[in-house]
């Protein structure tokens, strides 16, 4: 029996870890036993959720069965994770209990739909496939009015998504001929659009929103939704009206991890930011949205991707005795499709993440509607590489 590597989660982090290990050991004489567990049968390409909401993609186009991993010799188990016991090195699931030598936890953030009062009845969110489809139905019925897009805090998946959705909606509503009787407003906790990424990106996004007639309300610290008034209130008393409200739900770290010895029950798990190993259990790696906000990295798939490759490298070093693969690069990129315009921003967070000092080095790698092709190519490459048919 080879070294047992157990991967929890079939999102970006888990999928890339499994594939990186497969590639490292493909031609080696020693091979680990790799098992990936996820409660979902499919891996979904989350950056395309807004495209599902806007009808550019159908659900089947942006997901593939995780069972395809079997072709690479990776065992996939469709099960709900119930308990993690790092002292006994076991993970209990709805199907079986699994033992491991190395554990990679990439369970991401959970959407806490009940976390905000009146959220469930009032708000739409293309931050999940179901949410995207619900928004698509609502947009079909939408005849004009006030669209309000905003965030409840800083912790939500894919920070640029609200701006992207606003741009895509503007484009779609113009095509539908009802843009003139529709207001689109974004509210955000930051003073400017993506201003925490610095002026190089923020000014470009502000210009695009301005060209599209999308209003931005900054320093808006969300307080509550008032369904009677159809308004969203900020903590300072300001309010914004809506006919259609789009907001990411409250996010919370995965509850199984939070209830395990990997966490104290209320805070994010504690990892060494240099290695992503748990500070107490060094054979446990934790990556992605479940830990990144605690180590000053954005909750985005691209970060989990690079963490996964580095984690696979560390596991390879331990199994083989030495290996030179991927280092961790704290960079983030994201293709922001605004419908008839698009931006490819990038940020390097080395100083921010290592020394807790700034600013991040950010810039725009490309702008123009042709950037959408890059997103489409990346989507195709993602599936071809990681869930090969």
């Amino acid at each position, binding site marked *: 029996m080879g070294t047992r590597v157990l991967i929890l989660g079939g999102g970006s982090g888990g999928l890339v870890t499994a*594939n*990186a290990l497969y*590639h490292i050991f493909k031609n080696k004489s020693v091979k680990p036993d790799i098992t990936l567990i996820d409660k979902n049968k499919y891996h979904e390409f989350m950056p395309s959720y807004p495209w599902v909401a806007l009808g550019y993609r159908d659900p089947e186009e942006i997901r593939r069965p995780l069972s395809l991993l079997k072709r690479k010799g990776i065992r996939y188990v469709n099960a709900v994770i119930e308990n993690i016991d790092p002292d006994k090195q076991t993970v209990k699931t709805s199907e079986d209990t699994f033992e491991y030598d190395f554990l990679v936890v990439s369970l991401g953030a959970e959407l806490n739909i009940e976390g905000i009062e009146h959220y469930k009845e009032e708000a739409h969110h293309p931050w999940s496939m179901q949410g995207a489809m619900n928004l698509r139905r609502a947009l079909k019925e939408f005849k004009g009015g006030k669209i309000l897009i905003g965030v409840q805090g800083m912790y939500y998946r894919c920070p640029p998504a609200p701006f992207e959705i606003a741009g895509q909606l503007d484009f779609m509503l113009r095509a539908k001929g009802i843009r003139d009787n529709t207001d689109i407003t974004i509210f955000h906790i*930051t*003073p400017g659009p993506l*201003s*925490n990424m*610095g*002026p*190089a990106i*923020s*000014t470009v996004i502000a210009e695009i929103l301005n060209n599209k007639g999308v209003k931005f309300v900054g320093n808006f610290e969300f307080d509550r939704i008032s369904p009677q008034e159809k308004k969203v209130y900020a903590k300072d008393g300001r309010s914004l009206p809506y006919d259609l409200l789009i907001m990411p739900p409250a996010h919370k770290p995965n509850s199984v991890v939070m209830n395990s010895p990997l966490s104290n029950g209320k*805070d994010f798990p*504690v*990892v*060494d*930011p*240099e290695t992503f190993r748990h*500070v107490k259990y060094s054979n446990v790696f934790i990556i992605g949205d479940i830990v990144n906000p*605690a*180590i*000053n990295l954005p909750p985005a798939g691209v970060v989990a*991707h*690079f963490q996964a*490759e580095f984690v696979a490298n560390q596991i390879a070093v331990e199994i083989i005795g030495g290996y030179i693969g*991927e280092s961790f*690069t704290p*960079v983030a*990129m994201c293709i922001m499709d605004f419908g008839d315009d698009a931006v490819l921003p*990038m940020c*390097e967070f*080395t100083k*921010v993440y*290592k*020394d*807790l*000092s*700034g*600013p991040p*080095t*950010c*810039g*725009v*790698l*490309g*702008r123009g509607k042709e950037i959408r092709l890059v997103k489409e190519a990346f989507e195709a*490459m993602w599936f*071809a*590489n*990681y869930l090969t048919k």
Partner: protein
Amino acid sequence: MNTEKLTERQEEALRRLADLAVKLHENGVIDLLEQLSELSPKAISYLAEPRILKIGANISFILHILEVINPTIFSVMMNNFIEALSKEMTPEQMMNPPRATIGKIIKYMRDPDVQRALAMIFIFLKAFGASINTSAEQFKRMMDMMEKQFTKMKEERAKRGIPIKEK
């Protein structure tokens, strides 16, 4: 595609594809593609190196400048500038370059063409100065915002024993 019964055109296409595959195989192209395909999953990590990204962002910005400049205005101005320059900068002048004495400088300053050029330079300096000011304000706002985050993060890390590397 119906594989039970191929049409004549499909058969012909498959035969040509098979011939091409043999040629590619014999020339080692298939072998090369096979090796290169192994690099595909690594490509993202290598292209996402901060150094590459910074080069990319700077090239993109230079391209953006070229995009913003109106080609009609730019080409008309540059053509006239080059024409004027070619009239003024003669080989005779190159061999015996004039000296800018105080008297000559005063004479130049009275020249309306020089006055227009100087005015343009001052307009440029004014805009450049204003942009320094705006950039400084933008950076300060961002740093203030980040400093608040960092203070919170440092307290949190210290409380929970997460290591912080010294600068």
